[in-house]
């Protein structure tokens, strides 16, 4: 057994030492695999970042209420009476100022994108006082909060970056109303960073939506209170609404784009993996062919066939893992934290987010590299082991 292991080790080391002689082919194979990994990580980091931006805000003890049948805030509509009933429902957390419920209005406005100057769909949200404590992660990082009753807006930091003309102190004309930017907010990279906020009571008349809201966001007394809250709403004959946990709501709202990008990423990586595998096979077959005589000599000296198989396999794996690691590092350097914005078709508005290269993503990518390397090495390894020794020794 020990002899067997030392055989594997010595043959593998011997093989690896000859790699520099086959630089070109070895580098080509490793580059191919590095490419697969970079692409896989790069594309999936987009999906990962997008999903993270949508879900980081999702808290288990926050719920959102929409009209029943609505699949987004845009298609929802609630009256003032309905909103009041929701805020009074059991399970809603209360403070001395009243229930932690924010009735909100959601409209989309066009503002010029900084990068291109063309229109971007920007979500403009009318909120109530409780909006900040309900969400829990929104913080003013510049300027101040808007004053109720005035035409003032605060801007999410992501939108401030994406859209031109939203600096604090600037005024923005939307339709026939003039608004002043008074502050910038952050929300741990979440959805609120991609929105503009103002007082709902000011936004309503500006958009001819007196007494109309689109959603109510409430903070519950605990995550467990959700069922009680939901039952109270759905059994109330005066209400035609549905309640969803905030986390589930945001996850659903990001599902279309996330699965699309993941689909593209995996499909491309699969194709590319095929290409890289052919490259690795080519490399290892030539490696075996070039060493026919050496391998035959080793066998003649008494080395078994399994050390030969394993050594070729290990060589291929080492090349693949080197390439994979290089690719993963390159992808991490190139993509992690990259700031981007795209339109989320499910909300029909822009979402600013940062690409995220997460450790599971890197692990997944390196696993792909290992599989490619293993397959790329296996067949040549088997061929190496089957070489007839006498013919191999005669080989020139």
């Amino acid at each position: 057994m020990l002899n067997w292991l030392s055989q594997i080790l010595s043959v593998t080391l011997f093989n690896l030492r000859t790699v520099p002689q086959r630089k070109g082919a070895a580098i080509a194979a490793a580059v191919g695999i590095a490419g697969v990994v970079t692409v896989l990580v790069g594309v999936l980091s987009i999906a990962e970042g997008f999903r993270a931006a949508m879900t980081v805000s999702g808290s288990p003890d926050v719920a959102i209420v929409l009209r029943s049948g609505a699949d987004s805030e845009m298609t929802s509509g609630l009256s003032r009476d309905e909103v009041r009933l929701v805020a009074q429902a059991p399970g809603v957390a209360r403070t001395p100022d009243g229930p932690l419920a924010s009735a909100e209005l959601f409209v989309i406005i066009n503002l010029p994108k900084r990068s291109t100057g063309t229109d971007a769909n920007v979500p403009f949200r009318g909120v109530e006082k409780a909006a900040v404590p309900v969400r829990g992660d929104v913080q003013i990082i510049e300027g101040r909060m808007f004053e109720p009753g005035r035409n003032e807006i605060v801007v999410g930091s992501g939108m401030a970056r994406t859209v031109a003309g939203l600096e604090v102190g600037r005024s923005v004309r939307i339709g026939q109303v003039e608004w002043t930017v008074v502050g910038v907010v952050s929300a741990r990279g979440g959805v609120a960073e991609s929105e503009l906020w103002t007082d709902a009571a000011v936004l309503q008349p500006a958009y001819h939506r007196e007494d109309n809201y689109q959603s109510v966001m409430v903070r519950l007394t605990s995550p467990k209170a959700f069922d009680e809250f939901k039952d109270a709403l759905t059994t109330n004959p005066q209400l035609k609404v549905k309640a969803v946990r905030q986390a589930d709501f945001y996850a659903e709202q990001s599902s279309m784009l996330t699965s699309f990008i993941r689909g593209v990423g995996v499909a491309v990586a699969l194709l590319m993996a095929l290409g890289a595998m052919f490259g690795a096979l080519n490399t290892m077959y030539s490696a075996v062919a070039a060493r026919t005589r050496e391998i035959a000599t080793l066998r003649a000296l008494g080395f078994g066939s399994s050390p030969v198989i394993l050594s070729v396999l290990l060589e291929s794996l080492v090349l693949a893992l080197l390439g994979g690691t290089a690719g993963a590092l390159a992808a991490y350097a190139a993509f992690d934290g990259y700031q981007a914005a795209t339109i989320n078709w499910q909300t029909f508005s822009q979402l600013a987010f940062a690409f995220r290269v997460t450790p599971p993503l890197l692990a997944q990518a390196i696993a792909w590299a290992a599989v490619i390397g293993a397959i790329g090495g296996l067949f040549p390894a088997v061929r190496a082991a089957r070489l007839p020794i006498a013919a191999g020794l005669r080989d020139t």
Partner: protein
Amino acid sequence: MSLLFLVWSHLKRKKLRSALTLLSITVAFVLFGLLCALKEAFTAGVSLADADRLITRHKISLIQPLPVSYRPRIERIPGVASAVHMTWFNGIYQDPKNFFGSFPVDPAPFLEMYPEILLPADQKEAWLAQRNGAVVGRTLVNRFGWKIGDRVPLMSPIWPRQGDAPWEFEIVGIYDGAKKGTDTSGFYFRYDYFDEGRARDKGIVSWYGIRIARGARVEEVAKAVDEEFANSPYETKTEPEGAFAQGFVQQVGDIGTILIAILSAVFFTILLVAGNTMAQSVRERTGEIGVLKAVGFTNARVLGLVLVESCLLAGIGGLIGLALVWTYTTAHGSPVPSILPVFYVPTRDLLRGASLAAALGLATGILPALQAVRLRVADALRRQS
């Protein structure tokens, strides 16, 4: 002995390597084809836009509605030939994931405005005759296995029907696209039926399509339309159809660019790897080339021999790859119909792909080929041993 026979023998000598190289090239061109289809899917609206059509929407955003009464006012503006209104219905068939575009329209003016929608005359008559009739695009019909006469219930989260019942439509027509990239995933039905049935906000629509009169200038007409409605509660923004579509491409923004950049990088990496292998295999044959030259092959023939071999590999691999994508997209259409309804490889990209394959063949062949030409016979023969 013919040149091709020699080339064939060379390729056969290391069958496995030739096959693997060929497969890598095929994969690269499959990727190239998909990349082109993806790019076209993002930008089809721009390239197919009619230069004589404008889109008028609410100035604040597309979400804000416009009154249906704007149509006669738009049509009175000098330079406007006709106008039609469109409304975003957001119809849901069984499950919200089955997304497709659905719109109430005025049938006759609508079909006149959009001649790229090809509807047989008898089906048009049927549509005009039947209030709840719907006209559905070919790809959408194929997606759900619908046929003429089928009854299709749709729910709309934006437009509940009075009494909250689902909207009932009967398919009376199936339209095809006049051009290859025309979106045939739409579901169109009659505005009169819709307006009568909707529970609220009667008389509002989402946007207008305008055809300008012959000789009229696009910018001037757009300006005149917006001036007509300036300082009203429903101010408008009018732009050419192409610019409107381009605006959506910009909204997708960096993501589209990055996806396409990544795919291009992949394509070139694979080509690099394959090209390296091909060049390598020529270099290994120095000795043989020396023999060929010794038996009287001219430099031109040697050059041709090496180039034909690399071009053959690149050409066959490239053509197989492009053919695979073309067959797939022609037979199956889009892999994600709800996000990219239009998905095909434009002819110009097929040609571009074919010339890329040729370029790959030349590029990988030319250096080793020149080396082979420069080779002195005596050196080559000596090197062999």
